[in-house]
């Protein structure tokens, strides 16, 4: 069984835990052979939310805001830039029924 663990923080607490501590923890967990993928994210205001309706792609600035929608799955893409990430994300089928939030991954700073 695989489990997705989602990390939530208030905007002003994004750096409440030092990057170096997060890196050390993820290395220990990786050493146990249990981590499949783990990433930190840039803040919510760097997000773009996509919807496809009647074949037309629309995008809005910011994280998904529809409280009725719940997290249903995830993809982790390696893309050259946001345009490519958007092209890939627009091919995730539920984008036609719900929305897909595209959020850039943040590199942890070993000295941070």
């Amino acid at each position, binding site marked *: 069984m695989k489990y997705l663990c989602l990390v939530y923080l208030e905007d002003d607490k994004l750096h409440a835990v030092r990057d170096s501590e997060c890196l050390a923890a993820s290395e220990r967990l990786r050493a146990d052979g249990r981590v499949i993928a783990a990433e930190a994210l*840039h803040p919510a*205001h760097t997000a*773009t939310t996509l919807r496809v309706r009647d074949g037309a792609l629309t995008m809005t600035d910011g994280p998904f805001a529809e409280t009725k929608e719940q997290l249903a799955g995830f993809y982790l893409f390696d893309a*050259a830039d*946001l*345009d490519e990430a958007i092209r890939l994300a627009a091919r995730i089928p539920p984008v036609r029924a719900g929305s897909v939030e595209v*959020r850039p991954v943040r590199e942890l700073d070993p*000295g941070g």
Partner: protein
Amino acid sequence: MSEPGHGADDLAATVATLFRRDSRKVLATLIRLLGDFDLAEEALQDAFKAAVEQWPRDGIPANPVPWLVSAGRFKAIDAIRRRARFDAIDGDVATAVEAIPDGAARWDEREEIADDPLRLIFTCCHPSLSADAQVALTLREISGLTTEEIARAFLAPPATLAQRIVRAKAKIRDARIPYRVPAAAELSARLESVLRVIYLVFNEGYSASAGAELTRADLSAEAIRLARLVVELLPEREAMGLLALTLLQESRRAARTGPNGELIVLEAQDRSLWNRAQIDEGLAWVERALGAAPPVTAPTAAGAAASPRARVSVGPYALQAAIAAVHAGAASAEATDWAEIVGLYDVLARLQPTPVVALNRAVAVAMRDGPAAGLPLIETVLADGQLQDYHLAHAARADICRRLGRNADARASYQRALGLARQEPERAYLAARLRDLPP
């Protein structure tokens, strides 16, 4: 290099002119070379500082723009190295230093440089940024307005504007919004976003959304300048359509307010006050936006790959410009070719089936066939519900009811419109109409 020994005043004036005319071009190239907006802005300031220091001694270079780009680039490299020496060297900074191309070889890539202003426009108007952020960023980076000037123009606190711009730049950097002219397949959709931003700026200047002043001419003039720039860089029909539309609307500026700042609606305007030069230029652009012949202007390197779809189809801006052109050619409201206007709205409504287009079409039908024909169309638009809070929809219903002698209905609609209008001259206009209504 020209001869040294220019008067200090001459030199200061030359640098000031260069800054006004070319600083955005220099910035656009520096952003590409340095890969970062903030670094590029710092480098731009440093480059002009270097010019002020060195040109009195060395003379003004024959090609000041490449000189400024080169100076800015070296200053940025210096700054990065200095910073890197003091801070722990982080990967990003080291990569940035290495990625900066070397020497003047880049100047062979004239096409790259020619496309930089277009890259800047498409990045500032990237659809993943909010509309507010696109507008603020466009005025800051492409128009070179200060944050305070933008805040004043949009009646927003400077801190809010500053925050909006900082966040937009952070998103460009962190989400890696590319600094690129979109590929042919995406070009027309992305151009739409650019034109929407320019039209928002124009409308904010033409009819301020709130407050005492009806128009803010400088914002409209800036929007027209931006539209001209886009047409020059990317001669697409819709860009020409937007340029035509803004020119034709702007041509009525002097006629649309009275001596006390009161609103004068189109049908009551003194048409001799319309700006002939702007009308003539607007009409010429409408013709090219609608015409069958391909654009004459030489496209830029990127423009050459422009989407064929955008070239062959007539878009919403060109159609709205065509409608404005019919008004521009009419001696009075009565002498206007309303049949032609209804026909153009029919096409526009197919392309853009929005309630506002349906409303404007209904008003045109009321002019062509009489108010009795227009009223049911307006009722249908209002019943749809989306325009319930749009003051102009209620004002339009009020006008038609007034013309039909249905004074009680007219009064109710004027009152509704007055309750919704936020702009002082419009409120005064509606209040006057309400007063003039027979009991």
